[in-house]
């Protein structure tokens, strides 16, 4: 799992399970919190499609944290107001970077989280799909 995929899996993982796994990591890993955890606002930019002009659309609440394990950095940003989620995300990110023995378990958890998120979207789409009308199929 590449680092970007890991980041995205952390961002969509079940918060409670994420915190449980981070707590377990912290029993055997020395972590220094180097940024946050903070709740703040991220200004979301959107590109207007005709001129491809970026503009500031609206803010979202986000929670962010960065930790260090020796020379390794762990980072997470998640949507919403949850310091625990952000910090837990940064911890598991750092654990994998530092080659912590729990890494395979963490990666399996994150892979599963991503699959669940994709499935949730497919489920939503399944309910919408019957409202699709393809006029071009008409003869």
């Amino acid at each position, binding site marked *: 799992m590449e680092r970007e995929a890991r980041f995205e899996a952390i961002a969509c993982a079940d918060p409670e399970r994420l915190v449980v796994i981070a707590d377990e990591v912290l029993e055997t890993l020395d972590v220094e919190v180097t940024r946050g955890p903070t709740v703040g606002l991220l*200004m979301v930019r959107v590109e207007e*499609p*005709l001129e491809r002009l970026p503009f*500031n659309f609206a803010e979202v609440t986000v929670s962010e944290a960065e930790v260090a394990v020796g020379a390794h950095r762990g980072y997470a940003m998640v949507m919403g107001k949850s310091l625990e989620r952000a910090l837990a995300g940064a911890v598991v990110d750092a654990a994998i970077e530092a080659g912590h023995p729990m890494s395979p378990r963490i990666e399996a958890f994150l892979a599963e989280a991503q699959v669940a998120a994709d499935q949730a979207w497919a489920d939503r789409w399944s309910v*919408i799909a019957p409202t*699709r009308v393809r006029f071009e199929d008409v003869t």
Partner: protein
Amino acid sequence: MGYSSVRGGLDAIEHAERLIHNQVTDGGDILEVSQVADHLQLITDQVMGEGGVYDVELGALAVKQAEGDPIEAAFLLRAYRTTLPRVGYSLASSGRELRITRRISSAFRDIPGGQVLGRTRDYTQRLMDFSLLDGGEPMPLGLIAQADAPDDDEFPLVIDVLRAQELMPAAPDRPADIEPFDVTREPLRFPATRSARLQGLARAETGALLSLAYAGMRGYGGDHGYIAELRQGDLPVKISHPVTGRAVNIGWVSVTECYQIVGGQASKAKDRPDYTMGYGMVIGRNERKAISMSIIDASLKKEVKSGNVIEDEEYVLYHCDAIESMGFVEHLKLPHYVDFQASLVRTSKVRELVKAARTNA
């Protein structure tokens, strides 16, 4: 002024505040914030949009606290956002990246990917559903087949059809390299940049925008054409990963987007694509606002102005933000005793002078 009277005033104010609080928290069957978020999505979306902050729990909390007053709720969000630090700016997302839950075109019947009606009241009669008084029963949806999520390119933009036919300018190769204006950081100045206008309209109050768009359509300087495409869905929020520098997705924001094509009046003077576009993107499910925004965006872009208010960016941008308007209009409620007393004294003096002048005449 005696101390006791001031205390009396404070007691009255505190009591007034408790009465408001208890309107929300007292009596049977207290409203849960989750009920607002789940079943009053449209006001929650509107409030987040006008507050300029996407956070469903906060939006629903504001609705509850404000007893459902949409402008007061948006005000609460605006006030709350000033207490939070700004973490930064996202990478720019495009409507192309929407996870589509609704997508229609009223200009073209056959669009690649087809029309997706989604959740809509557009084709139903507006009848009161009295069964809802007893809670109401969900309607059976029939057998829902598990569908694969659509491919990324399954719903290409309809304006690309126009581009392919050279009726509209081709898309620039890369995004415009202009730092967008941020109305949350700097006061608006005029002429405003288009990025400031788009941000201002995205935060505007739905009713005010609708009224302006309608006036525009009725001939007060507005410009409207056809809805090339109206899209609803989830927009990815992306940042640059601080370690790797590559784009990563932190989550999704529910939005409605409208592509309004206007123009199409070819002339001998220009041998180039002459449709242009008004754009609207707003938070949540709010088609009324997205369509209105696209009409007003098109009007503000007009090069030849008619002098009507709808084409006047200062008029539009100053008066479409309900938080500004409400602050100014409702400040009239606060005591103006001294001002009015001065007006009264002036009036009476003048009238005495008038009387004196008449008597002497």
